[in-house]
């Protein structure tokens, strides 16, 4: 039975149509995926379903009845719950407290804690979430926090669950566990709307797939007969050329060398005796679960953190005591893992962000005075070259979609013609079109003789791009070998510390 349907929904913002005549439905016990690039209009649609926006045209039916959803509160009352991409939890409260927040069962003027706890743990059990409902949320892992969000939605007794990019922050194992929970929800008759741009995952879990492009639904398909390639084409609107030729050169001189590098912070070695060589015309993949020292390793190379022991050489020169600024200008390009926090200034314009860290470069300034004339033409050329979709160079970077923001960061680094590129999670939270583009650029840079260190938690990405793969676990390199020596499963074992000592 149909629980929710959108009928001819259109939404415009001024002259811009974010959604055009969108019609779709979700049944009880069904997982429907809305697949589309960033900027395709998925979020607008979800915000309409969740009562944050009102559609310009069209209407929503819930269980066959036309309804107006005026606010999130009304949406929840109608049985629609949403799990956002960014968690909305209070770290200092327990799981149960977070879930009942704003909806506490009462006993007189007090919260009925035991009833709450009972209800919450019953739900957790029913759907196999396996959460300790008395644990403080701040102590939970990302995967567990997601489950709390899910539980919050279930506590509201929803019949339709909207999930916005739920796997973006999860490790491969957590994704599997998460999907098992979704299946359990499906068996219990929930209608699930999954917003995603991850094709493989969508194919694994969804019953039906709607592909949304430029605000319109361009195709509806079931998983049978759909392939990653066909979906990608529909999403982007043209065939993807994912094959990139690699050329081999003999000149694989080491550009950046870590020798027995350790980094001690708060009494503990966050980096523990790492030796690595990043070489010309090669991509060195650093695989690992987040938080095992990847960030520290990259930031040691950039100079944001200080080496406590060991040596870092750039072109054979000790760079341990040089400043970040000089390293950037001398050709160490860094794409940080968290573009919002580290890579961009959201309040700055696209143009400002395109020279961030390179203001001193001779291309942009002389004697400390910025030549805006040349910056303007540079910015325009990067915007078109890297297909950064923005209104113009004066738009605030914070207003752009994730993929386009990432293109700013990548474009800025690559255009500086660095000798070594440290790309940390370069495609995280980025749509498929941009992923392909970034991968292509990285290979292109490799072929042009750049030394590349690719840090990623995504094994598919690592295995697709790297010449050599090193696995980092607990601040140490537990394996380092040519790409192809180990299978994905074996690499996964190294990543979780289940296998070790093979260097």
């Amino acid at each position, binding site marked *: 039975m149909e629980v929710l349907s959108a009928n001819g929904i259109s939404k415009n913002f001024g002259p811009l149509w974010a959604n055009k005549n969108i019609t779709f439905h979700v049944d009880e016990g069904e997982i429907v995926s809305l697949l589309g690039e960033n*900027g395709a209009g998925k979020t607008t649609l979800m915000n309409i379903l969740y009562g944050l926006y009102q559609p310009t045209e069209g209407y929503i039916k819930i269980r066959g009845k036309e309804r107006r959803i005026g606010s999130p509160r009304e949406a929840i009352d109608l049985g629609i719950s949403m799990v956002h991409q960014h968690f909305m939890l209070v770290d200092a409260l327990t799981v149960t407290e977070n879930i009942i927040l704003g909806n506490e069962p009462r006993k007189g003027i007090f919260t009925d804690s035991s009833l709450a706890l009972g209800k919450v743990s019953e739900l957790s059990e029913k759907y196999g979430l396996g959460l300790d409902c008395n644990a403080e949320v701040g102590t939970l892992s990302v995967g567990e926090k997601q489950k709390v969000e899910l539980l919050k939605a279930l506590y509201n007794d929803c019949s339709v669950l909207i999930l916005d990019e739920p796997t973006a922050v999860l490790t491969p194992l957590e994704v599997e566990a998460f999907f098992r929970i979704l299946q359990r929800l499906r068996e219990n008759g929930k209608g699930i709307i999954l917003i995603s741009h991850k094709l493989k995952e969508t194919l694994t879990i969804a019953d039906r797939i709607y592909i949304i492009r430029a605000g319109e639904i361009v195709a509806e398909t079931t998983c049978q007969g759909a392939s990653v390639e066909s979906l990608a084409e529909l999403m982007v609107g043209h065939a993807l050329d994912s094959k990139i030729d690699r050329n081999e050169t003999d000149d694989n001189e080491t550009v950046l060398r870590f020798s027995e590098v350790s980094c001690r912070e708060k009494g503990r070695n966050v980096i523990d005796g790492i030796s690595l060589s990043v070489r010309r015309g090669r991509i060195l993949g650093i695989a690992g679960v987040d938080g095992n020292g990847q960030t520290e390793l990259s930031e040691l190379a950039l100079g944001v953190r200080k080496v406590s022991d060991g040596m870092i050489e750039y072109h054979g020169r000790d760079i341990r005591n040089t400043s*970040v600024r000089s390293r950037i200008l001398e050709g160490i390009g860094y794409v*940080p893992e968290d573009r919002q*926090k580290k890579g961009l200034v*959201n309040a*700055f314009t696209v143009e400002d962000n395109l020279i*961030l860290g390179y203001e001193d470069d001779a291309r942009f*300034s002389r004697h400390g005075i910025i030549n805006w004339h040349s910056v303007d033409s540079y910015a325009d050329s990067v915007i078109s070259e890297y297909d950064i979709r923005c209104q*113009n160079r004066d738009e605030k970077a914070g*207003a752009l979609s994730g993929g386009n923001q990432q293109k700013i960061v990548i474009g800025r680094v690559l255009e500086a013609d660095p000798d070594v590129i440290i790309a940390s999670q370069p495609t995280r939270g980025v749509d498929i079109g941009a992923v392909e583009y970034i991968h292509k650029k990285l290979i292109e840079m490799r072929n042009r003789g750049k030394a590349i260190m690719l840090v990623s938690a995504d094994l598919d990405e690592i295995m697709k791009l790297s010449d050599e793969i090193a696995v980092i676990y607990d601040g140490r390199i537990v394996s380092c070998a040519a790409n192809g020596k180990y299978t994905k499963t074996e690499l996964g074992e190294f990543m979780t510390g289940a296998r070790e000592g093979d260097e």
Partner: protein
Amino acid sequence: MNIKMVRFNSRVSYTLLSLVASFTVCGILLLIVGYNPLSVYGIVAEGSLGSSYSIMKSLAKATPLIFTGLSVFFADQAGLFNIGAEGQLLIGGITSGIFAYYFSTIGLPPFVSIILCLTLSFIAGAVWGFIPGFLKAYYGANEFIVSMMLNYVAQYLCEYLVTYPFRGPGVTAKTNEIPASYQLPRFVDVSQLNLGFVLGILAVVAVFLFFRYTVSGRRIRTMGRNNVAAVISGVNVRKETIIVFLISGGIAALAGSTEVLGVHGFYINDLSPGYGFDGIAVSVLAQGNSFGVLIASLLFGALRSGGSRLDLRSEVPSEFIIVLQAAVVVFIATPRLIDMLKIRRRGSSKKKEAIDG
């Protein structure tokens, strides 16, 4: 339409609406207490803009605010709070008071003396600003608190200096009178308006150019908007913190210097009726725009000069102006309040989020 235009307009309209709102709210307040707000505002307007004399008086009152506002604004661009403009002003004032008189006694050419006094005041203020900047950069001290507490240190230090070692003749504690030729020239004899006002405008232009066209200015703004990204992009945050406080302190000191050299001709206790603190309000009102500092200073200067008429011509005490200024700051600092007052215009503000997808 050009996106820059849209944003500019919305920001200006916000600010204007805030002003209208605060005047309205204070008007209602006057009504409640039993005065006619229109006649009160009339007196203020006449007192600030009614004659060429009153206009000059408004500009004169605005002069120290330009400097203190610019000082707070400068630190704010780096994401730092300089609440110490008041103290830095006093330090700058006494430096000029002492040295201008000294230079006149040794017969230095007046022109050289003025330049030297301004420079020395700037340096003294910079030294005063260095303290919170340094403590923040190297010991993680809260610059807000340190710079604020230094106001008291400055106040009592200056009080001591002017009461004992550098006291001039007379009943009140003040430094020796600076000969007229060693003071900043006035435009007309009857008005306190002096060259300091022009210096203030030049300072605003300089700060604007600094942030717009220099690499250092860019880096300081980066630091203010996203500290982590600044570090990643190679900004030495410690160094810049100290530099920002040096400059911010120096600019605030010029407020004291121009007051002493241009208005009073000596340093006196209570040189500032809170110009340093008004500078914070000016910076808030400026909304991140260097020229906004100038406009905000002119507004506050006009209110002050017009407000002094209230004591003469009405029953309303001139302190009412302080209430009005406070209301302006409250409305500016809480844009949501204006949102609530504003009839919701659909689309324009939400458009961007939506395009994101």
